[in-house]
């Protein structure tokens, strides 16, 4: 194998885990602030990187995630306006007619005065959630979660295979349902409703099960049925790690919930438990002799993308811990948000992959007609 993939100028798809780590770092950054300027900056950074490094022709759920974020903001503001909220405020924007509720409805009110402070707090909180959702949408767009499926540890190999089978068969099932429906229509059994759905279910399910048995036979004939024997030692190790990890997680969660400040319990124990649980997944996979088909390399660009995302997250974390002014915007009394320049620079670090990560292959070729020209050239020369 050549070292060609270490040249970051060569177009290729980045390792999906790198994009997901980048996005989680950026989401961590977004979760640290309620400053609308910083949050907007984070969404813009995510959108720019998506626009620059999205593979052409791939599905783009980024827009859907942005709409979901907008919905989160809208819902909060509508709730705040209609039902009031926990934020006390003095600046009354307007007053809705209040509908009296029977007493004993525990502080719920309908209508009444709408304050600037309440609406601002609802918007900021909603914007924070929307920014986190935008980061996750960016990850979904830049590296489809289906590509992540290839990297599940071997302990999850069978389940991963079932998932791939499911993703392959789902469109066929929809096709089947359509065919059965057309056939029923032709026989004059038109109609809608639950009874029709029930009649549809049986032939579709029957043919699906039939197909699954055929698939199983063909998988077995291709050697899938070969059982991988794990030796007793690695099995014991995995068991010990699993049990230790689970106890650690439970004790850690208990420590977090409990009010008494015990230094050993809580977050450290939780982290140790999670590491042990992850290790048990890895230990079981270690002796797995299966090979991967064309694995994505993990090289400098992957480290760079991961580093940029994590740096943005850590910088915002430090800024929030230090109490840098502008990370949290005062809502009562309402004040104009300012852009704190140091955290903003931290967020901008996450923009670097838009230039320094390798181009996806189809995007490198150019727009679609360019691809066709190229194919024609290949056809003409050969």
């Amino acid at each position, binding site marked *: 194998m050549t070292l060609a993939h270490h040249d970051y100028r060569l177009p290729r798809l980045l390792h999906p885990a790198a994009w997901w780590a980048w996005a989680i770092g950026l989401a961590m950054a977004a979760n640290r602030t309620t400053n609308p300027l910083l949050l907007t900056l984070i969404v813009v950074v995510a959108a720019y990187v998506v626009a620059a490094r999205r593979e052409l022709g791939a599905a783009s759920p980024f827009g859907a995630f942005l709409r979901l974020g907008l919905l989160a903001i809208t819902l909060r503001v509508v709730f705040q306006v209609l039902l009031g909220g926990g934020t006390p405020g003095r600046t009354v924007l307007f007053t809705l007619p209040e509908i009296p509720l029977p007493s004993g409805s525990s502080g719920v009110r309908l209508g009444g005065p709408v304050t600037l402070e309440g609406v601002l707090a609802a918007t900021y909180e909603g914007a924070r959630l929307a920014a986190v959702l935008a980061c996750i949408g960016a990850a979904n767009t830049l590296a489809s979660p289906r590509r992540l499926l290839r990297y599940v540890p071997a302990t999850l190999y069978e*389940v991963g295979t079932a*998932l791939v089978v499911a993703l392959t068969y789902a469109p066929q099932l929809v096709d089947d349902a359509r065919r059965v429906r057309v056939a029923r229509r032709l026989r004059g059994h038109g109609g809608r409703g639950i009874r029709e759905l029930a009649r549809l279910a049986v032939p579709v399910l029957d043919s699906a099960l039939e197909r699954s048995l055929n698939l199983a036979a063909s998988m077995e004939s291709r050697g899938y049925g070969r059982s991988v024997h794990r030796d007793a030692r690695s099995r014991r190790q995995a068991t010990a790690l699993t049990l230790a990890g689970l106890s650690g997680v439970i004790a850690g*969660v208990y420590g977090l919930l409990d009010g008494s400040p015990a230094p050993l319990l809580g977050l450290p124990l939780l982290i140790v438990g999670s590491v042990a649980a992850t290790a048990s997944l890895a230990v079981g996979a270690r002796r797995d002799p299966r090979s991967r088909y064309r694995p994505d390399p993990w090289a400098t660009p992957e480290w760079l993308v991961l580093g940029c995302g994590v740096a943005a997250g850590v910088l915002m974390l430090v800024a929030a811990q230090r109490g840098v002014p502008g990370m949290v915007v005062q809502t009562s009394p309402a004040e104009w948000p300012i852009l704190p320049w140091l955290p903003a620079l931290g967020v901008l670090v996450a923009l670097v992959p838009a230039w320094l990560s390798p181009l996806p292959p189809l995007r490198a070729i150019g727009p679609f007609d360019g691809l066709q020209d190229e194919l024609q050239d290949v056809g003409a020369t050969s």
Partner: protein
Amino acid sequence: MTTPPVPNRPVLAVRWRAAATLAATSLVGLVAFLWPFLAQPGSGLSHNADAPWLFVLIIALLAALVVAELSDGGLDAKTVAVLGVLAAAGGALRVLGAGTAGLEPMFFLLVVAGRVLGRGVGFVLGALAVLVGAFLTGGVGPWAPFQMIAAGWVGFGAGCLPRASGRTERAMLAGYGLVAGLVFGLLMNLWFWPFLASGAPAGMGFVPGDPVAANLSRYGTFYLATSLGWDLPRGVLTAVLVMVAGRPVLASLRRGTRRAAFGASGTFVEGHGTGRAVDRLER
């Protein structure tokens, strides 16, 4: 040839390690849903915007662990294929039902398949169907781990129901579907309820450090006001589907699993020439 007796074994036996993992995960999962009520005042979680995100990561890890333990060495090609195809059906149903006022026909499949294939497959199928739905719509969000665990519980519970047949069985499954649809919504709201924090409507929000009873009553109000309209149709749809389509679908699934002959092993038959292995149950 007469049909050989099918050993009455679950498709996916839940061994002690898997059971322990599942129990621990369910415990942490319950805490992850219910922490707003459990956190003591002054604890590390009660005043922390990160707590929900922390639980997203933990639950994702534990869901992977449970599925790994449940499937450890127990999944042959037939189980993988049947799981895959049923998860495909669940995912497709989820995509079809998404967005229409909680009418999620996926739960019907989970209840029926969990009943026929047993609790182990029920759990894995629930988790996988949610994941397939998320992949098909192209959005794996922070809600996915919680939905996986909760849908897994629905399938697991269906596999734990007592023995019954005929009309009694369908009535039992329909009742279970109704309850499962409601409880699923009750739990799933909880994962985002703390996010609303001070932004929630007056008298419906999570107040960190408040007594449990006060938070519970506020959550009750929130549930009645926002979520019941989604959860009730889901539960009712599941129940109606079980009553209307339950019999043929249960029969179809049982026929399929009998043909697949899970858990059957080949036997050596004396007197067949050189004593070649004949897998009696192949056809």
